[in-house]
């Protein structure tokens, strides 16, 4: 019996505007993310990575793969921003790759999903965004990069939206560092009970108060280049 898997999906915008330094930063970011995670035994044991890119089309360039076998993809920038297609593909991949718990078999942890985009969607995305938001395929963090990305579009997908104003190599580096810290923390601490609440005395003649509820995951605070969009 092995430990539960922690699926991690990275959705990267590879439209034309990402050409040059940004796409190179994304590539080296994914490489160092992988390196960093390979240095953490808990992540090695449970984290699985997948990369989905979107430009004129959406494509799963790396299927959900265990860390030790993951090969960072070679990705290129060009074309439009098929954000809707990417969201649809994400849902397909999650349905296909993430194992559900059944009465007979223990399934995977809820996936961690990171989406980043630097522009306005160029396809029909609203319906897909609504599906994602309603079905909540996992803990989803969306990042709007640069001047042109609209964080309010991302708000249709998830409540957790970040803004990375500058698309500098350093900002990307910090972003991927934070992604790796988030995955490490989740792979180590997932399943931890929340600290017990302040002792609540039982009412006279009543049983004691219920135990502390299970905590969801919490991630480390993002780097200073990235701010939370509210």
């Amino acid at each position, binding site marked *: 019996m092995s430990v539960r898997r922690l699926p991690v999906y990275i959705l990267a915008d590879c439209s034309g505007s990402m050409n040059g330094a940004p796409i190179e930063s994304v590539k080296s970011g994914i490489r160092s993310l992988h390196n960093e995670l390979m240095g953490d035994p808990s992540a090695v044991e449970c984290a699985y990575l997948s990369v989905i890119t979107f430009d004129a089309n959406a494509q799963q360039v790396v299927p959900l793969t265990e860390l030790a076998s993951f090969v960072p993809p070679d990705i290129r920038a060009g074309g439009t921003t098929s954000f809707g297609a990417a969201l649809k593909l994400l849902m397909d991949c999650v349905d296909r790759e993430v194992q559900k718990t059944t*009465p007979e078999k223990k399934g995977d942890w809820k996936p961690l999903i990171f989406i980043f985009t630097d522009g306005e969607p160029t396809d029909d995305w609203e319906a897909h965004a609504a599906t994602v938001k309603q079905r909540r395929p996992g803990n989803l963090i969306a990042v709007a990069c640069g001047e042109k990305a609209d964080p309010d579009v991302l708000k249709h997908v998830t409540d957790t939206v970040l803004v990375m104003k500058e698309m500098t190599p350093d900002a990307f580096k910090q972003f991927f560092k934070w992604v790796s810290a988030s995955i490490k923390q989740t792979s180590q601490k997932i399943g931890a009970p929340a600290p017990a609440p302040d002792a609540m005395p039982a009412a006279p003649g009543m049983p004691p108060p219920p135990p502390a509820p299970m905590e969801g995951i919490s991630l480390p605070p993002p780097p*200073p280049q990235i701010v939370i969009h509210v």
Partner: protein
Amino acid sequence: MALLSKPKSPPPPPPPLPSAPQQKFLRAKLADGSTLEFDSEPLASGGEKIVFFTKDKQHVVAFFFGHVKDPGERRRRLEKIIGPYNPTIGGAQADYWRKHFCWPVGIIDNDPNLPADFIKRHNIFKPVLGVVAPAYRSNFFFKDRTGNTREKKGRWFTGVKSRKLVPEEERGNLLTYLQCCSVMASSVRRLHFAGLAHSDLSHNNVLIDPKHGDATVIDCDSLVVPGLAPPTVMGTPGYIAPEVVAGKKQPSIETDLHALAVLIYESLLLRHPLMGPKVRSTRSPEEDDLLSMGAQALYVEHPTDATNHLKPGPEIPVSRLGPYLQKLFIKTFVVGLHAPHLRASASEWEKALQKTLDLIHPSPDGKNWFIVAQGLPLDCPFSKRKLAAPVPVAAFLRHIKRPGSETLDFKDDEHSLTVWNGQYLYPWHARSNVSPLDAKREPVGYFTFHQGRWYLVNQSNADMVLVDTRDYLRHGHHVELTPGLRVLLSLEDGGRLAVFDFLGA
């Protein structure tokens, strides 16, 4: 629930870099008035602390960043840990404990001279509280080709996937894992003896060096100190006692005993004692885990309830670790799983591990070791090779004095020794009142296989007695081992009678 906490505002732009990257050091004042310099770039960051190397790299400085309701509590806890509860200062065994604990040595309590931008940049909690601890010993780091170092967290060695990434020469064998566990058990025993509970024992907080059978307990700053409120850290998933997972109890000595047993089971068998196939809830993995590790936790090798047994069964069942450890696993994971006060104590583990080391036998492959005892097969489960029978074993009986009785009376000491060629007999074998933990490692005899026969050679300066023939076995003399042979190993107080038998004969 918010997924993210709000970060602090961005730091000022960094100063222009000179041609070569330059390390910048900051100075901090400790509560005892001394000062130290540390690297301004962090070494690592954990759940509640961010860690920096001191300039001489002999120590690390860790600053707390999480919010706590009562910061004074944390400081008072540290003061107690460094002061009255400190096993690494004073006492005959202080040197030993300094090796096996990474014990805090100093506090930085709200030093007003720490730069504000530094505090802001790293989200350090105000009033600033820092703790200084020794750097880990060098054998607790992996070194790769590029000179990068990585801590030898126990998890590296026990995970199915992570273990494959560990260089083969670092992986150790059952003998060295028993030694690692023995160090862990004695360290936990020492904490509990002082009334302290670690509260977060896990394979992330114990570093092990299976190559040398060494271990050290780290993160000793969140110990549960008597008289102070327990820390808010609940522990690491997989090691948290069921009653804490279920929200009924706080971390304590009893919950440490669950974590210690999990650590020992994982180290020796490379699997988790409670993570079996039984599904408790299909609603969410979180809920299933909460029940599987909490209210409905069930040992994967439960003797009568098979619902959480591994399928197919494990290649190396717990019984292959011998009777002493198997008994304590039952005590902790069956009897005491939901009855914390019935769990095996750290001192029981320490003794059982020592006794199990007496049952270990070299594998025919010359690399591995495995347990050979009454009722166990003679095949090595690691190399799959079988020992040539017969294998001599000695059962120890303890001499008891009955008032008024002239005869020698003996009682079973529940301790055996598996004999192999070239094995030594030590004082703690010869006498029941000598502990392997504080006796000198000076042999009093040895066993040898010579021209097809087994012999015991007396090398002590005292006589042994061949009870059946009423002869002395004097220094330098030997006796051939035969089934039923009885040797009184020492005439001193606590002297034991060894009764020999042969396995696989």
